[in-house]
């Protein structure tokens, strides 16, 4: 028999302590997801408390949304229902870190910045750099599969997550993977949690592969005035034996917003290695850029930290396509938004085929029908996608933020969801296909 709301408030407070729980509507407003306020907010202090909260939620049928810093709380369709927000930010400890192993086990609520500070003492890094994401939590970054320009060299969360301790919908604390860099013991459970938006379980603790920070690094911003010249430079860099860490593409609006020298398009490159290799890469890149008619070359030290403002704003898109098709798609997106009187600031990963764009001065009422829908249809031909990462609620109600999935894959995903969360309490309705 369901217990009463006051009794639930008591039960939640008994698990996490009164100071880490809220049930008063006025205090809950800031924790609303897509405008829907929860009935409770609780912040567990360890994974056991996280487990007990989920046991309670599953017994009482409470819909749960886990959160970290809240930076990506807008990602996903509006929740079908919401009772309890699980705030993981108190789970912020580094549990195990032996620098010689190049592996760290960390609680999910720790921020990228705090981990970076700790690893930096040993000249090591977690090679995950979502733009403007330093204050984001590890759990949030992994659950949303956030990545940044460093993915070109080091891959994404799926390549860096070795082990995960998560809590299933029924409160069962579960471990998947290993704490060593190589292990093939059973299914790749950690990778199942990456990008799953907490719909199969709530991430409590992660074991990560680290990389050494090379002794030297350099960065350059190459400005081009035509698509052809920028594309030529990118293609030739990709085909060469040069080994950049990052290879990003920015349009003029993004450059202006990030207070960088403005050109029609710019390619931002970073290299890290021994000083001799960084210097020779610089020379080779500059030579290549000149061959392709570069208009300006700026040394880009500190460039990557400065890029965050480029993508700020209430409406953000993420486009994924084949690597070589990034520039044509950027052009398409710019043209379609311009036709509606808006502009986009775009930052793309030229070696990975991923583009993020903030849509500025958008005429919201026409965006779904005249930009998102037609682009999705055209992208579908090459297996690409267009995800609305952040948008005002009105627009979110008009579309599926993820786009459509192939029916066969979606069917397996629904079966997975049904197996591990049959009552649908974990972020209900927010993921692909209504999961």
């Amino acid at each position, binding site marked *: 028999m369901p217990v009463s709301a006051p009794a639930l408030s008591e039960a939640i407070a008994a698990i996490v302590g009164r100071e880490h729980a809220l049930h008063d509507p006025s205090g809950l407003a800031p924790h609303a997801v897509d405008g829907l306020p929860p009935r409770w907010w609780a912040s567990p202090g360890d994974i056991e408390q996280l487990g007990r909260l989920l046991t309670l939620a599953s017994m009482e049928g409470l819909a749960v949304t886990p959160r970290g810093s809240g930076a990506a709380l807008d990602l996903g369709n509006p929740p079908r229902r919401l009772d309890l927000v699980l705030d993981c930010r108190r789970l912020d400890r580094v549990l195990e870190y032996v620098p010689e192993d190049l592996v760290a086990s960390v609680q999910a609520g720790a921020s990228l910045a705090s981990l970076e500070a700790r690893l930096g003492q040993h000249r090591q890094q977690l090679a995950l750099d979502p733009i403007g994401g330093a204050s984001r939590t590890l759990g949030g970054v992994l659950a949303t599969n956030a990545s940044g320009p460093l993915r070109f060299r080091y891959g994404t969360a*799926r390549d860096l997550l070795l082990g995960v301790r998560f809590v299933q919908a029924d409160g069962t604390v579960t471990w998947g993977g290993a704490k*060593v860099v190589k292990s*093939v*013991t*059973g*299914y*790749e*459970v950690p990778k199942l949690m990456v990008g799953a938006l907490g719909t199969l379980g709530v991430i409590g603790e992660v074991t990560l592969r680290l990389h050494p920070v090379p002794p030297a690094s350099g960065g350059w911003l190459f400005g081009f005035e035509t698509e052809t010249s920028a594309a030529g430079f990118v293609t030739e860099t990709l085909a060469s034996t040069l080994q950049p860490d990052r290879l990003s593409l920015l349009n003029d609006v993004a450059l202006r917003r990030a207070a960088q020298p403005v050109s029609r398009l710019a390619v931002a490159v970073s290299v890290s290695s021994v000083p001799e290799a960084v210097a020779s890469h610089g020379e080779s890149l500059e030579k290549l850029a000149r061959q392709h008619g570069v208009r300006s070359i700026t040394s880009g030290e500190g460039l990557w930290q400065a890029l965050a403002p480029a993508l700020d704003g209430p409406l953000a898109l993420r486009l994924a396509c*084949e690597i070589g098709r990034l520039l044509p798609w950027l052009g398409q997106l710019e043209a379609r938004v311009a036709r509606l009187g808006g502009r986009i600031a775009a930052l793309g990963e030229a070696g990975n085929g991923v583009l993020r764009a903030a849509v500025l001065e958008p005429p919201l009422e026409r965006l779904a029908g005249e930009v998102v829908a037609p682009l999705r249809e055209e992208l579908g031909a090459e297996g690409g996608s267009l995800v609305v990462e952040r948008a005002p609620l009105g627009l979110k109600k008009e579309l599926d933020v993820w786009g459509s999935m192939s029916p066969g894959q979606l069917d397996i995903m629904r079966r997975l969801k049904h197996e591990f969360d049959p009552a649908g309490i974990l972020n209900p309705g927010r993921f692909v296909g209504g999961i």
Partner: protein
Amino acid sequence: MELSRAFLDELTRIVGARGVVTSTEGRLTYECDMHTFHKGMPDVVALPETADQTAAIVRLCRRERVPVVPRGSGTGLIGGAMAPSGGVMVGMNRMNRILELDLPNRCATVQPGLINLWLSHATREHGYFFAPDPSSQMVSSIGGNASTNAGGPHCLKYGITVNHVLGLQVVTGAGELLWLGGKVQERPGYDLTALVVGAEGTLALVTAVLVRLTHLPQGVETVLASFASIEDASETVSAIIAEGIIPAALEMLDEAVIRAIEEGIGAGYPKGAAAVLLIELDGPHEEIAVQSRRVVEICRVHRGLEVRVARDDAERALLWKGRKEAAGAVGRLTPNFLLQDAVVPRSKLPRIMREVLAIGARHRLLIANVFHAGDGNLHPLICYDERVEGELERAKQANEELLQACIALGGSVTGEHGVGVDKAQNLLLQFAEADLNFMARLRRVFDPDGIMNPGKLLPSHPACGEGFRPRRPTLPDGAWV
């Protein structure tokens, strides 16, 4: 299990008369993989030539509740490609073509039976290679590599197979034929591709693999260093990693293995040393020049005896040939051996190697070592003679103690070979019941009737009686680790 005439007729209609093997002699080839400890002959072998045929086989088997066991080249080391409860073995060897090379997207689509090395041969002239390089790569298939999530010496820098699989065409245990993942590197939804990689055919059969191609590095340097003790070599490994240098590969071979290799193919390893490190650096020219100088210094500081840099490609190739054929060469030292694949955190390498030596001494057994030291991935070969009473028992005991020691140091029971039947029960050392239950339920989502490679990957209760028959616990000559 006895398959009905009607079943065999229907199977023959799917793949044609030339696509089925029913004779006892014919099926004998398929009764085990390179791990001959466990044998199980399939009732019939089917050799499909298309994904549609493969899907039809799985659907037929599902309807009739007949086990389906996939097989590539049969070079696995865990008893994954044998049929403990009979049924249909699906050999993917006839599907061995490269379907597409897509260099602008840095990927290739291949059929599962394609031999690993063939792909690198086909892409090298364009400046690319397929990074996963299990020692068996000249004969093992990419479908098998994907299904076991194979490693190899160079995964120290480049990662294991899952890091190089962008998509898969599969037939699930429910009979669905579909593509997972794809060329576009980011897509919404659960990462089903990663789940099927390493699933050892328990979730789905793989009918095509979309793999990432990696750019060839600017340059390569290979350093060979010998040491008077395994301890010195182990400390050198830890020191190189601690220095912030991640070589492309960092392999260790001990005295027994060096002797076996030199008596066999003569790769030019220094005889008489207690341990040799094979250290390969690749990347930008200036980077490897600086790093190889530093690596040579570190080897010398840690009492390296002979430290030399391979002069040319020929010398480098010979050193690698010795390494890749090492496990086969150990056949010269011992009639039988048990092979381990456990992993420890890299900083624990000196400690675990002391433990390996102690365990060998305690059980009066030679334990030969050739392994991926940079990853902490051990391959102790516990040598014994089955004709000597009690040696097998002692070898098994030593094996068990070694696994326990690795787990106690925070390691894993298998780093790259996989689980199969051989290590299924060992998962109990590493996982709690809740963890294994999660995986068992995951399996059911893909394979609701339990027909896909039954008895593999996850531990089963002994009472379930999977029916496999333990045999001579040894590896044949020419096995690769």
